[in-house]
């Protein structure tokens, strides 16, 4: 492979073009036309379909009547990461899927309108919310992703002193690090972080709880703790060759593209992406845009069982990503220098038996092993649980999923609430940004209720 040829070099220009936001967003005229199409339903199904219950007809009417500040406030009031959600929400399955116009004509493009209003807020720099009068209560939030930011924002608006402990150098969680820039530019997520910061929330980045600050210190220093540390990188496949050069973690791969040109080299390479979730799709389209010559997604089941959203799958196909269904990786093969040269796979068939998750169980076809020549392998088979942190906090959990009261987010420790991906387990819907935001809000409200309950009892005893 001619890596030295200028044609084969990944240039800053290619990065700019490949990783700039793909969807252009609505023009003003487009937004006016689309917003005027909204029926302004009463008791609207779109609101019910939104995990954060954004008053969608209201924010759309405000766009139609040229009140973009009011529109952005309506969105961000219900969803502190509403600008990111405008881009990454599976709207076809949520608000837009519930739009009454689906069968009558075409659903309102709620996601794009939400983006139009929040883009206006970002560009205008207008102040949307104010911090509450300090009430003397302190809350620590572990993790500065969507759930943590949402909890912190709601608490700050009510006067709580909030400190977010973020392990990475930048807050925002997966919105900042884990979603490809051409779908969600980092600047959007960082604006949301900034909004929370402007309410007086202290965001301590690069601080790992249990390492840089002890659990005891936290528990002693705060009235309540919100655990919203999400999940980790991709767990090992458990097959031979995972340490070879050219094997990448899908989340790390995406992360390296979020702040600039990544150090890794995929230009002209043949890439196999293992997995078929949304992160796998992100890793695949990311590889295409990093100049890979061929990208194949390798999945042991079929299209019917894949967990990626339909629109993600469509997007990947448009990007030229190929799919190897019913293919199980057995071994990654490398050359004498330790570089990946092939992926050994075995063909699978669906048994007709249904597994615990309701999907058909795949079985290897005997003697069907084959070699897939590849230069790189990207692993996207889920995320590691933060068992160490959860156990350091002394919380009950099931396989790394923190046990909580579903309504309040309260963990086995009455001082600690949990929200977001750290409580997400199989059979509990989808790990969506918008769900994490709502869980963060719910934890904040539960804390407020608990605190005011305490105050009431104090007042009660004083009387």
């Amino acid at each position: 492979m001619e890596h030295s040829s200028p044609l084969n070099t990944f240039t800053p220009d290619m990065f700019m073009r490949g990783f700039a936001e793909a969807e252009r967003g609505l023009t003003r005229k487009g937004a006016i036309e689309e917003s005027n199409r909204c029926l302004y339903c009463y008791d609207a199904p779109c609101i019910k379909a939104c995990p954060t219950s954004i008053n969608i007809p209201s924010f759309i009417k405000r766009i139609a009547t040229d009140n973009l500040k009011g529109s952005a406030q309506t969105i961000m009031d219900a969803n502190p990461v509403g600008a990111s959600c405008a881009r990454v929400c599976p709207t076809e399955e949520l608000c837009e899927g519930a739009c009454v116009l689906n069968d009558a004509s075409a659903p309102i493009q709620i996601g794009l309108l939400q983006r139009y209003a929040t883009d206006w807020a970002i560009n205008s720099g207008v102040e949307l919310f104010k911090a509450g009068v300090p009430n003397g209560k302190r809350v620590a939030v572990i993790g500065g992703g969507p759930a943590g930011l949402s909890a912190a924002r709601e608490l700050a608006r009510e006067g709580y002193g909030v400190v977010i402990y973020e392990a990475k150098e930048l807050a925002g969680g997966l919105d900042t690090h884990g979603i490809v820039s051409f779908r969600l530019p980092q600047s959007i997520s960082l604006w949301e972080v900034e909004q929370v910061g402007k309410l007086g929330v202290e965001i301590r980045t690069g601080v790992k709880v249990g390492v840089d600050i002890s659990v005891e210190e936290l528990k002693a220093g705060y009235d309540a703790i919100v655990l919203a540390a999400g999940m980790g990188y991709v767990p090992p496949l458990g097959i031979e060759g995972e340490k070879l050069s050219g094997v990448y973690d899908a989340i790390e791969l995406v992360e390296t593209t979020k702040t600039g040109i990544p150090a890794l080299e995929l230009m002209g390479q043949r890439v196999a992406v293992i997995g078929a979730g949304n992160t796998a799709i992100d890793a695949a389209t990311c590889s295409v845009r990093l100049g890979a010559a061929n990208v194949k997604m390798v999945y042991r089941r079929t299209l019917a069982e894949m967990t990626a959203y339909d629109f993600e799958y469509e997007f990947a196909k448009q990007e030229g990503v190929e799919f190897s269904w019913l293919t199980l990786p057995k071994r990654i093969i490398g050359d004498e220098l330790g570089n990946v040269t092939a992926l050994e796979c075995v063909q699978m068939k669906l048994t007709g038996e249904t597994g615990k998750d309701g999907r058909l169980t795949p079985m290897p076809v005997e003697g069907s092993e084959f070699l897939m020549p590849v230069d790189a392998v990207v692993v996207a088979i889920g995320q590691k649980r933060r068992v160490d942190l959860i156990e350091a906090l002394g919380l009950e959990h099931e396989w790394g999923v923190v046990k909580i009261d579903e309504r309040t987010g309260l963990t086995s420790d009455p001082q600690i609430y949990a929200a977001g991906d750290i409580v997400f387990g199989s059979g509990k819907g989808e790990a969506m940004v918008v769900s994490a935001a709502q869980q963060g809000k719910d934890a904040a409200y539960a804390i407020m209720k608990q605190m005011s309950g305490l105050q009431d009892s104090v007042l009660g005893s004083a009387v």
Partner: protein
Amino acid sequence: MADLSIDLAGIKSPNPFWLASAPPTNTGYQVQRAFEAGWGGAVWKTLGEPVINTSSRFAAVHFNGQRVAGFNNIELITDRPLEVNLKEIYETKKRFPNHAIIASLMVEPKQEKWHEIVKRVEAVGVDGLELNFGCPHGMAERGMGAASGQQPDLVQAQTTWVKEVATTPVIVKLTPNITDITVVARHAVKGGADAISLINTINSLAGVDIHSWNTIPNVGGQGAHGGYCGPAVKPIALSMVAECARDRGVGVPISGIGGISTWQDVVEFMLMGSTGIQVCTAVMHHGFRIVEEMIDGLNNYLDDKGLASVTELIGKSVPKYSNWGDLDLNYKVVARINEDNCINCNKCHIACEDASHQCIEMLTNAEGKAILQVREEDCVGCNLCSIVCPADGAIDMVALDSGAAPLTWNQRNQVISGLNGSYSEAEVV
């Protein structure tokens, strides 16, 4: 293909589509382009003493993202010398002998002024005259236009003066800026008018710029009322046409004007008593070519209805238009929601709940599906739900047999006064 030709008080036209006296009929060039596009007639932009205009002149009202729901202007009559207009009228008529050219006229309310202009325009071969007693701005300040149109006796006198010398049919154009348009219509007829045209524009201020606080439109930061027209005025125009059409004291052909934009509008105006119609705003918005869609739509409609001539439409709905006191108080309609077509936007529920009689309930049916249901016993048949409903066929207004014989307010009062002659109507109420 039905026969679209009309004869309005002796003015023959290949179709009922005339351009109203307005900016699109300012020059021979424009009127000839219009005839080529398919317009059957044109009322030439009002002739009179050339006047100076302002800049800017027009404004519009846009509604929910749609342009030009209503249109407002402060332009005046022709800005060109009479001789130029007369020459172009002559040339145009020569090129289009079968099309109708009507000269709109406006002069000071003096007999000799009217005699002079009538003679000069008839000399170049116009098919008829339209007296502009309607323009609400600019000319009115000089005692012309609406200023004379708002005085029935002045309308009658000026019409008389015109008729003293006119050899072609005389149409009097009426202003809507008056309490009862039929009063002026009757005076025009008394003065000898062969037809009336209505409505002229309605006094209006299109808007106020909420940022500069200037009027819309404004002339160097200053504004004045203009004349309102376009789709938004259609219901007002239609009711005034209907009032004149059913008034026995009027009894002359009507040229309908006011917000006509589609072939359906044309049908409505003709059903309500117009022999022909005039259009301006639709052309201001889309150009002369819009007439092609109007002609085609009208043709197909007439064919569908099996009508051989467009004139068969004239006045057919006038007998259906009367007074509130003649409406059957025992007639009863109720709303019925068709679940198959309902899209569950709940607009009917909230409209009824907040603005009518609280009789549409949001329920869940046996299958767990959200449905809307009318409590018919409480429904007053106001139509509001069916008006706000965005889904085709989701709400029907269904007539119920009340079991009672038709009874109008007027009949009721007659019966009551017959029962007890000593009580007046007011006392009974």
